[in-house]
């Protein structure tokens, strides 16, 4: 396999593998986005909503109890769960919807897995008075009933997707099909650092606020950069947002944490980088879980937000170049971490974020007490409490 080096690529990854019908829309998006990059007014509006509407900056909290419990380096929690709507997703949505308005688009569509990105999109559309339709797999609609109700309450139309595996992958296919059909007036707000160029870069730029804040906060708190950054990776937007400002700080180790589901060798997981191979999905070249014929395989995770067979192309690149490491955490380990953080710190994490916490459980005891570990608490666990209860009653992860 040869590496085609060109714009919109991270090494061999990325690109624009989409139907011709969308190409002009992507070119226009890239052009408008580039204009925004230079436009102070755009960014001051973006920061205004992050601050006044979403409540940023989010704290970087020293988790004294968890640090003590694990007996190693000092653990800091980046509290993205304290954002309005309960996750980091809103950072990106504010950016993209402001861009959509500039481009004169009147209709917003989005895909969602756990429902967090759908809720964030419905929220910003309600606030900015835009029509909003969300695509969500039938299976996720069932798993995240409360988020469906939230989106409807916010005035969005939720379309349950019954094709394929009925999860995030299929919701994304359906959103792309909608976009191909309604490309003139519709803006597709992708929820992660995935999809065709320029989405992976654009979403990263809207999420890097996480890492930018962490850098400032850790310098104020500890007087130096952290030794480890840990974040869960489905598509990978919270991780990319945290990592990006540190990519050139080579002493900072970056760890992305994928979902090992029922185990990496069971075939029921979503550990794209750990077990996948390069291929094309949703308009990008990246690692993906596929069979030998290139058919996309069904994936599994207890967490709907990590249940995705691909991964952002920039993560694929960070993995290939060795700049970031990628570990995998099982459903069971994530559930344990979910309980641990709740009990030690009084913070119920999203099941997605619990994967990052679970990795810290493994990592921290191997570190010395003066090392600094920052873990991205990308979302809060309220949405998961009911399904965790069901799982625990059932005697183990589904």
């Amino acid at each position, binding site marked *: *396999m*040869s590496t*085609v080096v060109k714009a919109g690529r991270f090494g061999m990854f990325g*690109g*624009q*593998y*989409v*139907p*011709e*019908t*969308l*190409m*002009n*829309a992507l070119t226009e998006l890239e052009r408008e986005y580039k204009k925004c990059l230079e436009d102070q007014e755009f960014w001051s509006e973006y920061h205004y909503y992050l601050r006044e509407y979403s409540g940023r900056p989010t704290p970087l909290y020293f988790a004294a109890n968890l640090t003590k419990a694990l007996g190693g380096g000092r653990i800091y929690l980046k509290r993205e769960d304290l954002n309005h709507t309960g996750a980091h997703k809103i950072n990106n949505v504010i950016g993209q919807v402001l861009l959509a308005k500039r481009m004169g688009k009147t209709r917003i569509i989005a895909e969602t897995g756990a429902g967090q990105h759908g809720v964030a999109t419905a929220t910003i559309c309600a606030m900015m008075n835009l029509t909003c339709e969300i695509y969500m797999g039938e299976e996720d609609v069932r798993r995240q009933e409360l988020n469906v109700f939230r989106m409807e309450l916010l005035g969005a139309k939720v379309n349950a997707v019954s*094709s*394929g595996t009925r999860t995030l*992958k*299929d919701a994304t*296919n359906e959103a*792309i*099909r909608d976009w*191909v*059909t*309604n*490309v*003139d007036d519709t803006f597709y707000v992708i929820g992660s650092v995935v999809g065709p160029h320029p989405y992976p870069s654009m979403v990263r730029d809207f999420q890097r606020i996480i890492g930018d804040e962490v850098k400032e906060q850790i310098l104020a708190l500890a007087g130096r950069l952290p030794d480890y950054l840990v974040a869960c990776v489905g598509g990978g937007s919270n991780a990319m947002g945290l990592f990006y400002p540190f990519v050139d700080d080579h002493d900072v180790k970056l760890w992305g944490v994928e979902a090992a589901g029922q185990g990496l060798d069971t075939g029921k997981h979503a550990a794209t980088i750990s077990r996948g191979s390069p*291929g*094309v*999905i*949703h*308009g990008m070249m990246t690692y993906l879980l*596929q069979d*030998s*014929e*290139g*058919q*996309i395989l069904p994936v599994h995770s207890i967490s709907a937000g990590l249940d995705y067979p691909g991964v952002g192309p920039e993560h694929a690149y960070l993995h290939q170049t060795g700049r970031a490491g990628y570990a995998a955490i099982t459903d069971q380990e994530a559930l344990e971490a979910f309980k641990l953080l709740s009990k030690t710190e009084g913070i119920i994490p999203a099941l997605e974020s619990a994967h990052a916490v679970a990795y810290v459980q493994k990592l921290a005891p191997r570190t010395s007490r003066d090392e600094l570990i920052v873990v991205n608490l990308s979302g809060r666990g309220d949405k998961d409490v009911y399904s965790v209860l069901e799982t625990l009653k059932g005697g183990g992860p589904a």
Partner: protein
Amino acid sequence: MRVRSVFTNLIQHGRKALIPYITAGDPELAVTEEIVMAMVQAGADIVELGVPYSDPLADGVVIQRAAQRALEAGTNLHKVFELVESLNSKISVPIVLLVYFNPVYQYGLEKFIQKCVSAGAAGMIIPDLPLEERAEITSIIEAGGYPIDLIPLVAPTSRERIGKVVEGASGFVYAISSKGVTGVRKQFSGELESFIGQIRSATELPVALGFGIGDVETVEKVKEFVDGVILGSVLVQMIEEAAAKEEAIAKVSGFIAELRKVLG
């Protein structure tokens, strides 16, 4: 036979190309073979065979379901190539494969092209490989001198891209009738004719129109300004709804025969 010579021949006789699409392996490969034979008998000029894919994002629900059925029936690339080879020994019309990029990439680009050529496929349509990503595959085709066409797709949104998309292309130009995915529709833009005109001013290649065409009336309307029509979902739906393969074959070939009369 090459795609281009089919068009040359038709144009000389004032006729239009009839290009039916069906998904290979739906409901099973043996039936696909029989349907293709019947379509050719009924007057198809070029046959477009879909390689079933798990995530066909340019396709509407009808072809998505067909792909799912075909995959569940155990269809894979190896078997599709066997089908192409077998068909080639029985019919003389060109077979064009509609295949998403990932299966091609996993097979290996050059190996895939070689296999197409040796099995006797005359062309490929890759709906998720736009101009920006096609350089690698076109350079392999050129360097190897492989007798196969990579059919370019042009959309109503292509506008100023049209010239670049058709540049260096061979076979014919696949004009996408409307924004959206595959699937029969009743309404078409009034600007269809000027859209085709834009393509013609950029290339000498024949132009065939597809996406959404599902009835004789539409074919009647568009035939005046195109060199061929491509019909897919309407046929796939006939296959889906048929109670038995005999019914599928009869319905599909009956419809093809009807279209043949319209297209000369």
